[in-house]
């Protein structure tokens, strides 16, 4: 019995192992987007969002740095200046985070948040203006990730193996709290983008935080239906209106 079932079990384990492999994200990828605000059908470009990866070497290991920045276009800088930096240092294969850094500079608002992950505990350091520092040790569930690694981890999903309507959930650590994020696979759709006409996986995203993303199926993401699964377009309904994220350029892709 064991002899006959063993190769079968082994093949399942192997295929699960294959699922874990990062076949979508390269170590030198750069995706640039334009974030726009939509008011009654009139779009205004607000900021440039960049998602970049690079390899980081320590004496013991090689990690992947996932970096996201949001910078307002110069015409907005005197009005409302945004210089946000989000980064996560992760396992290059499983995208398990080890260190997360969030540095928010929006107008006169400043906040820096750092998480150091160690199994099911996270050491959190929050800094605000006027030398305010708050240290905390948090207990998290297995598989909880930061927002940046979750965004990249979505790209490791094998959409060929899931059916339309499938919902997947993630646990995200944000502002020292674990929140639930999810996406529902809505099927394939072909859209025209700045990098060409692309067949995409269309996803509806949501969170347990009702005040962040509003409505059901109002927040959508389009990921290219190829091995890279890069985000090419996003539509979001937020408390102050609707926003869009459109790809401008993509370089250093893995496939």
């Amino acid at each position, binding site marked *: 019995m064991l002899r006959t079932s063993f190769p079968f079990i082994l093949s399942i384990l192997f295929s*699960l*192992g294959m*699922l*874990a492999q990062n076949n979508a994200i390269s170590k030198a990828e750069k995706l640039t987007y*334009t974030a726009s605000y939509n*008011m*009654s059908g*009139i*779009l*205004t*470009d607000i900021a*440039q969002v960049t998602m970049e990866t690079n390899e*980081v*070497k*320590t*004496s*013991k*290991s*090689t*990690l992947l*740095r996932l*970096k996201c*920045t949001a*910078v*307002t*276009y*110069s*015409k*907005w*800088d005197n*009005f409302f200046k945004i*210089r946000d*930096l989000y*980064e996560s*240092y992760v*396992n*290059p*294969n*499983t995208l*398990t985070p*080890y*260190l997360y*850094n969030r*540095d928010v500079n929006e107008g006169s608002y400043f906040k820096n948040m750092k998480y*150091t992950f*160690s199994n099911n505990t996270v050491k959190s350091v929050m800094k605000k203006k006027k030398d305010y520092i708050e240290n905390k040790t948090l207990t998290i569930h*297995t*598989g909880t990730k930061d927002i940046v690694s979750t965004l990249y*981890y979505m790209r490791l*999903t094998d959409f060929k193996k899931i059916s339309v309507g*499938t*919902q*997947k*959930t*993630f646990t995200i650590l944000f502002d020292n709290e674990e929140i639930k994020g999810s996406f529902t696979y809505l099927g394939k759709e072909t859209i025209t983008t700045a990098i060409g006409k692309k067949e995409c996986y269309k996803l509806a995203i949501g969170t347990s935080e009702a005040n962040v993303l509003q409505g059901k199926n109002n927040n959508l993401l389009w990921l290219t239906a190829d091995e890279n699964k890069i985000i090419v377009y996003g539509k979001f309904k937020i408390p102050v209106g609707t926003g869009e994220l459109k790809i401008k350029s993509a370089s250093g892709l893995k496939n």
Partner: protein
Amino acid sequence: MKKALTILAIIASVLAIIFAVLPISNFAVFPAVIAIIFGLAAYYLSKRTGEVKKIIQFSFILTSLALAISTYKAYFTKTEVANTEVLDAKETQFEEEAIDELENLDIDTNENTDVNIEQ
């Protein structure tokens, strides 16, 4: 009625000008359309009574100017990012600090946990 429409047309055209010079120049079209509607209504009523006040024509000039500015900005202003030196320096500084911190962590990059996403 005529007076109220004239005042509303002037207010809307001034708003259109303000929007047109700000980064939200695309939104100038909303007060501009309102200014045109109120301005035309005020013009029509004034013409019926025989005297068209110069202020109505002035609101049309302001509205046209606002639309010209916002159209020019929509087609000819380049959207680009500037002054990112501080952010660039921060990115480098954070990476250096992160490497120092990561050196002290017990990292096993061969681990293969949390493979499957919860369904």
